């Protein structure tokens, strides 16, 4: 910190403190050096207790395992031992894990572009000058985001089941033979649809808010130049809200890697969703169905590292282009 007396004359208290430091010696200067730590303490304590320690514990668990002796019945039959990297090796070598990663990649390829594309289109439509009933439309599109994922999955699950779905009654009446979304590979779209339904509204609001912040002079200038509404949208609005789109992309990618609630809720309804359908479902199965916290911890660490690499890699890739032009 440079001398506050010269840089901040407006803050009346500061010069007085600075003077006091000079006159009263080392004890107050020590206290002064401690002061920032005092202010930081609550944040540090919370960070250590609820983030750093659990992560450290998860990493610790990922290097441990439980060994059973004999028949493994009764007290003292299990002992925790070091496992080295064996949990990581078995997680990375598990074909079920690799298959779940592949599924999530495909799921992300379906969900992220569809959801953000829809969100962008809706935001641009709401922002267009000729739009009517924008408040109602905005609320209506946003509303599904307020529905918890478990509830929306149950809701859609009923709609997907041919035996109880009103859609299939209509299809039958029309004489259409529509296959069940719960048979075979179509289930991917069944799950993706719930994500798109639930997530579009939120992303739309983020992009719409960015659109509202565009200064109106730009539109006036464009109008003088004779730009059409479409040209205004593609040449002015989209480039300016690009940082918002990138931010929502990163969040959506992270959410994709974490997809859990929807397939877990739908699993009992369909033969096409396994207990390891997504990486997090495998973590849950290992930890709570198989009672193996150790390999679950190792898989969690792998997912966390992959999430970091993917989201920061993506940011690096697009950052210079998106944020560079602002400078």
């Amino acid at each position, binding site marked *: 910190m440079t001398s506050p007396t010269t840089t901040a004359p407006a803050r009346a208290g500061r010069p007085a403190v600075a003077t006091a430091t000079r006159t009263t010696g080392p004890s107050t200067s020590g206290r002064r050096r401690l002061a920032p730590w005092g202010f930081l303490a609550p944040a540090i304590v919370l960070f250590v207790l609820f983030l750093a320690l659990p992560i450290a514990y998860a990493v610790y668990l990922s290097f441990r395992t439980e060994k059973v002796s004999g028949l493994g019945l*009764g007290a003292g039959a299990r002992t925790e031992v070091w496992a080295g990297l064996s949990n990581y090796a078995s997680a990375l070598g598990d074909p079920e894990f690799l298959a779940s990663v592949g599924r999530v990649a495909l799921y992300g390829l379906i969900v992220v572009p569809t959801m953000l594309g829809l969100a962008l289109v809706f935001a641009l439509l709401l922002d267009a000058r000729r739009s009517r009933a924008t408040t109602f439309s905005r609320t209506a599109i946003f509303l599904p985001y307020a529905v918890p994922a478990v509830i929306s999955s149950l809701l859609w699950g009923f709609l997907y089941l041919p035996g109880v779905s009103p859609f299939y009654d209509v299809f039958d009446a029309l004489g259409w033979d529509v296959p069940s979304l719960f048979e075979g590979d179509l289930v991917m779209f069944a799950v993706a649809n719930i994500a798109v339904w639930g997530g579009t509204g939120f992303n739309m609001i983020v992009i719409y808010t960015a659109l509202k912040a565009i200064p109106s002079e730009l539109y006036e200038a464009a109008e003088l130049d004779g730009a059409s509404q479409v040209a205004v949208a593609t040449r002015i609005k989209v480039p300016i809200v690009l940082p918002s789109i990138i931010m929502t992309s990163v969040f959506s990618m992270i959410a994709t890697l974490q997809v859990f609630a929807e397939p877990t809720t739908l699993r009992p309804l369909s033969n096409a969703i396994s207990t390891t359908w997504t990486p997090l479902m495998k973590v849950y199965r290992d930890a709570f169905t198989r009672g193996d916290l150790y390999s679950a911890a190792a898989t969690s660490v792998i997912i966390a590292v992959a999430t970091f690499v993917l989201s920061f890699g993506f940011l690096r890739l697009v950052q210079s282009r998106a944020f560079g032009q602002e400078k």
Partner: protein
Amino acid sequence: MRLSTGTRIAALAAATALVASACSGGGDGDTGDGAEAAGPVELTFWTWAPNMEKVVDLWNADHPDVQVTVNKQDGGDPAVTKLLTAIKAGSGAPDIMQAEYQKIPQLVSADALADISGTLGDDVAGHFADGVWNAVTLGSDAVYAVPQDSGPMQFYYRADVFADLGIDVPTTWDEYAAAAATIHEKDPEMYLGTFSANDAGWFTGLTQQAGASWYGIDGDAWVVDVDSDATRKVAEYWGGLVEDGVIDNKPMYTPEWNAALNDGTQVGWLSAIWAPGVLAGNAADTAGSWEMAPMPQWDANAPATGTWGGSATGVTSQSEHPEQAAEFITWLNTDPAAVQALVDESGIYPADVPASTEALSDPPEFFSNQPDFYEVAAQTAGTVQPFTYGPNINVAFSAYNDEFAKATKAKKATAFVDAVEAMQRITLDDLKSSGFNVSE
């Protein structure tokens, strides 16, 4: 999909750790022994049996010194998950726990259930059939729970549909297959049953009837015998029915299946003694048209059945008052008044032999058209085949879900047999990699 802030990335890694550390956080001193010594002993009881609190009220009224509080659970699986997490965390477990029979080896292996053989009276064992008692002792001198209810399997069918189509009630599996084909041929929407890849306990019961026992103990080593001739026979049989399309392949307990029971497109169910409650709840429109018969047989001369469900009540290893808890569970499952209340309030089929004949006379309301309901039930209960569960039955069951989901999706009899082989491999590998003594 829910969007997360950046910090959630890291929290992901910590998900499992959070659970464990949050639970262990309140580890010490929450029992407050000093203050409690003067007041009554407080016991908590995790159970999912309906109206259990009314049964417990009878005990609480007579035992001011030992007060039991019921804590309602969602069902067998979630309750075990919660209990094992609490055991791992070192605190948070109840004193008393309802546990399905197949979960007992797993719970004992995780040191979740206390051995109460020292505090039980000598006469308790005499209340139960040998096969049932064996499930709570695991064939050892220890006693890990007191049996509460049992779930012998029977065949439930729409008597009106069978009469309309002129089909006799199948007594063998060949007849069952023929009946299934006839029914589906008469009405392509209609099925005599479904093969559910979601209900491992159901399939276990079917293999139990055929003579399978998925685990065994050989000296001080476990034997895994999922892939036995009996299991393969059952899998191949059902795979054939699914492949021919005469049996549905959708899971049970879905809204669709419930609707199919009610609208008469599912006209049969291989289920257990608690089926009337499920049918009354899901298929209210069909009241009075269902009947129950013994299971179709592999060998008509040697009637047999399996079990699906049924549970016992145990004392957890974290209980501070195991003696009072053992006293309570003995009362709950063997006292005639308590067993009568369990039948009336919770609708269970008691495991206690002397008290159950007294408690069960009139048929369940949904089966009032079948006066001999409980006579037939008692007759089938006597033919339950022995079966041993192992410490990683949870792994075998989740392998069942995944492998048989693939097989029912594929609709090929060979895929059903492949699923049995995969279950054997997964179960055995897990047991070995955990370090159990395994004999092959």
